[in-house]
């Protein structure tokens, strides 16, 4: 064939249109816009608490494709149109109203079929966005006295492992050396520079969070769901600050037990509430496993606040010992359907500690929409507590 006719030679360089795809580029832009939109609506999206799944690092959010709006006529109750085939006046056919018309056909495509996009979001990203969006304070980690050591890159040397060869730097050396008259033109061993590592000591940023949940008969399923969502986001928030974050789950009724995370949210108990048992268990675990000196200890307690009257004195004492051992103690009162702050037995105990100058804060969760306010309260309070310390 004549090569000049089409320029279609197997030896010709790749055609420009094979080098990139404009469609894919614009699709990525659409994707970025969807992510932005999701990000703006994240607080509402995750309000339902549905997306929280134990341990998953990503979350899938179904979204609709964005529509580029145009002026369009209102959809009338009936449309007239033209068809073709063997039909007599009065014949009735099923009309596939939700026709998917190819929207590529120039301006004025028809109704577009519903296509859903499953957006996979990283939990860490979401937490970042949320913190930004909700203007939640960033925690300043409290440095314990213990030190972590870590390797950091520092300086260059002429000797080193092959894998740490710094090519750019070595090349600069070569250029510098060659500038001198009569220098050897090629690389010599003297030009090579290797990145060096050195050991740094940094304060340990370790933390442990205790989640203490009241699972007595008076806690409803919804109360527990609320507490679960709250705990989930608290962990996420703390994870942003602490590289090593351990979680401990304790449930109590008139007794207290430690659970694994997966079991924890399944537990349901019966009987009354004896908060002192819970506080006592936490204190015990701290002493056993987490020497206060090395860990930043956070305790969150979720309850409906109905502590047994006979337990008041014991609970006051237990809380009194617990609070000084922690960086922060938070109390969420889950009262599904009620967002008013009510005076409860347990609430009063925490108020007393707060008056006594402990790093303590309390909050009421009436529904999922209160979670953000609660998080803000707690994180702001922790920030204050950290500054005081």
């Amino acid at each position, binding site marked *: 064939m004549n090569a000049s006719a089409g320029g279609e030679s197997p030896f010709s360089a790749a055609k420009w249109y094979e080098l990139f795809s404009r469609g894919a580029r614009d699709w990525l832009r659409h994707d970025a816009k969807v992510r932005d939109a999701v990000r703006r609506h994240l607080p509402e999206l995750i309000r339902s608490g549905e997306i929280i799944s134990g341990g998953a690092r990503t979350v899938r959010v179904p979204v609709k494709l964005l529509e580029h709006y145009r*002026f369009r006529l209102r959809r009338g109750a009936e449309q007239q149109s033209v068809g*073709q085939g063997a039909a007599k006046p009065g014949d009735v056919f099923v009309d596939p109203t939700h026709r998917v018309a190819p929207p590529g056909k120039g301006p004025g495509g028809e109704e577009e079929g519903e296509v859903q996009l499953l957006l996979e979001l990283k939990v860490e990203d979401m937490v970042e966005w949320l913190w930004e969006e909700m203007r939640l304070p960033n925690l300043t980690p409290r440095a314990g006295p213990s030190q972590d050591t870590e390797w950091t890159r520092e300086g260059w040397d002429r000797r080193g492992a092959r894998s740490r060869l710094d090519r750019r730097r070595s090349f600069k050396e070569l250029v510098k050396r060659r500038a001198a008259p009569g220098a050897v033109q090629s690389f010599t061993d003297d030009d090579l520079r290797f990145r060096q590592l050195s050991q740094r000591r940094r304060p340990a940023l370790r933390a442990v969070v205790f989640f203490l949940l009241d699972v007595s008969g008076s806690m409803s399923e919804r109360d527990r769901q609320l507490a679960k969502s709250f705990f989930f986001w608290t962990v996420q928030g703390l994870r942003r600050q602490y590289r090593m974050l351990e979680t401990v789950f304790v449930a109590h009724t008139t007794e207290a037990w430690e659970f694994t995370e997966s079991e924890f949210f399944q537990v349901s108990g019966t009987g009354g509430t004896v908060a002192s048992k819970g506080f006592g268990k936490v204190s015990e675990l701290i002493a056993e496993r987490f020497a206060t000196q090395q860990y930043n200890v956070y305790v969150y307690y979720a309850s409906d606040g109905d502590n047994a009257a006979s337990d008041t004195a014991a609970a006051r004492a237990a809380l009194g010992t617990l609070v000084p051992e922690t960086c922060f103690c938070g109390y969420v009162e889950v009262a599904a359907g009620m967002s008013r702050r009510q005076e409860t037995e347990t609430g009063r105990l925490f108020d007393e500690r707060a008056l006594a100058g402990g790093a303590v804060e309390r909050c009421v969760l009436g529904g999922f929409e209160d979670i953000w306010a609660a998080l803000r309260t707690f994180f702001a309070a922790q920030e204050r507590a950290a500054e005081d310390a």
Partner: protein
Amino acid sequence: MSHEWRTFVPRLEQLARDLGLDFHPVEFEAVPDSFMMEIAVYGLPVRMPHWSFGVRYIYQLIQRHMGHSRLFEVVFPGNPGHAYLSAGNGLAENVLVSAHVLGHADFSRNNLLFQRCQGQVSERIVEHAAQHARQIQQAIETHGIGRVEAALDAALALEQHIDVDQPLRRAPYPQYLEPAKALADDAFRRRFAALDPASPAAGAPAPLRAPLPPHPERDLLWFMAEYAPEMESWERDVFLAVREESFYFYPVFATQIMNEGWASYWHARLLREADFIPQQAYLDAIRCHSEVVRPVAADEQVALSVNPYHLGFSLWEHIVARRGLDAAFAIRTEDDDFAFIRNHLTRDLVEELGLFRYRARDGRATVLESDLDALHEAILAPKYHFGAPAMVVRRTRPDGTLELGHDHRLAGRGLDLDRSRKVLEYVQRLWRRPVRLVTVDEHGAELELSVP
């Protein structure tokens, strides 16, 4: 990939010329399917970036995966014309498609609507569009994606709202109203003036400032570009770039039935008369032809839509058979789809083709009594105003508020309010003053939307 089809192209071209077709040279290029798909999405080989094309692209991908759509060719009229053929086509398909392309090339060179629009836009729209794309890419680098996207959101949303009856490069409106005509100085006038000597006989009145716009303006893109109070010049350029491309798209849109029919008529005829095509290739090509140009899907009796290829093809066959080739050439020069359908879709042809009008309601389509005029209108209804509602700029208020109006009389119903509000939001971000829109609600009562 076989290039054998290329050897037939010069002979097809010669045959076409012998039969009376008259076209600018066409550059053929076989390209991968993925690129064909992009051209179909963008409408031009290189076009400005915008996220909405990404959405169309995904729909197109889905369609392709479901095996719904198959693109054989895309043609860009011009001098020279550009034709892209799918590299996946077989020999027979490509021979058919090349012949088809020649039909399009003849049509776009001779049809008056094409001529007028091309005369305005120039015959090198493909290069212009690439230039626009470059311009916009530069604007993104200078002003940031956010601002450029805001401009494109608005401009592309108004893509169909142009006025092709006005030139592409329009002069601004006169600033002042034309002064009233000087009164003739005749006997009557003199006697009339004498009646009241106090009235000022002469003294030119101060010229009156013309309202903006002086008449309802259909070209929203031009109006925005020309009169938006606070738009920057690069933003105006974005509007004008989109508008220029719309001028190019309009004739393709407004003659689709004719143009596709004409190309189909000619590919069929050229293949029939081309004795140099191998027998097998001819048979394959004709099979392919009958798949493209068929009224209803193979396994169905009735279709609730009309295949423009089939409709146009049948009309042209009919015209050539009854009135000869010369009449057909004259019609392809003078008509657009509106004239073509109204003048040449006759009662006999409607019966022969089995076209019917139906009313769709609640998922049930009821076939209506036959009525030729109503049938014409039902075919043409989606084609009015570039396929968009009839919008005009009604006026601008002294505070700079832009007032748009919707003429609902032809369509018989008002606008989709949610979407309209979104479009107003796009527009407002560029107009930078309040924007209002008057349309009607479901009962026909006037209704005003405003942003902010």
